[in-house]
């Protein structure tokens, strides 16, 4: 099964990127990136519950330019993975599984995840004053 001399397929780089394949790869990529965010979430909860100084340091880092940028990308990754995940669940229920519907829901996922990210950040910034 692990014979390296056999040809491997698919050769992703010879295909023209399509919405379907880009979103499929994006689902995995956002999942990987969100895993890092999950580690941070546990770190944030643990330091909040135990170590005052570590919590202050972590919050200060999250408030820095790099921290805010990462948090913004994490928000976008979360909404994309959430919306596209719901799309996958609907497919599993054999809803919207025609090519036209697949492209339509793909674009809905793209615009909805961007819109939800912007709304969330607007709410968060407004809440913080």
């Amino acid at each position, binding site marked *: 099964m692990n014979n390296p001399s056999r040809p491997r397929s698919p050769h992703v780089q010879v295909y023209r990127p399509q919405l379907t394949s880009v979103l499929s790869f994006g689902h995995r990529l956002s999942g990987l990136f969100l*895993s890092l965010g999950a580690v941070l979430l546990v770190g944030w909860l643990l330091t909040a519950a135990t170590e005052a100084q570590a919590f202050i340091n972590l919050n200060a880092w999250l408030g820095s330019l790099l921290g805010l940028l990462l948090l913004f990308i994490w928000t976008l990754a979360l909404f994309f993975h959430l919306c596209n995940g719901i799309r996958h669940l609907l497919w599993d229920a054999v809803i919207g599984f025609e090519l036209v519907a697949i492209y339509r829901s793909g674009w809905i996922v793209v615009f909805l995840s961007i819109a939800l990210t912007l709304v*969330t950040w607007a709410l968060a910034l407004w809440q913080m004053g």
Partner: protein
Amino acid sequence: MANGVSEMRDNDNRAALSRARGLGSARTGVHAWRWQRVTAAILVPLVIWSLASLIAVVGGGRETVVGWLARPGVAIPTILLLIALFWHMALGLTVVAEDYLHHNGVKIATVAVIQFGCLALGVAGVMAVALAIIAG
């Protein structure tokens, strides 16, 4: 595994279908697939709730966060979120590792690290909520 297949091909005159069946399902393949979907469905409302709830305390200090986390209405969904999240994460990362890592030893070691790591992170997160309840 690689040797097993080629050996079988050499001294095996069974029909192709029979040979494929011999290598086939261990009858547990759908288990991980199904739990990936179940945890996904559970995470949909929990993630939306936690994001909305987090926004309310994210600017506050440590006292605000611990007090928020200690409330039953926050602690219970947060614990559920942590369990579903790290279960979902373990299943997802395992699939990615199995797809892209072709060396068997590396693959097995990576999957072990992923699954033990997710368990440890989930336990640590639940412990943080418990500590907040004790402190608050």
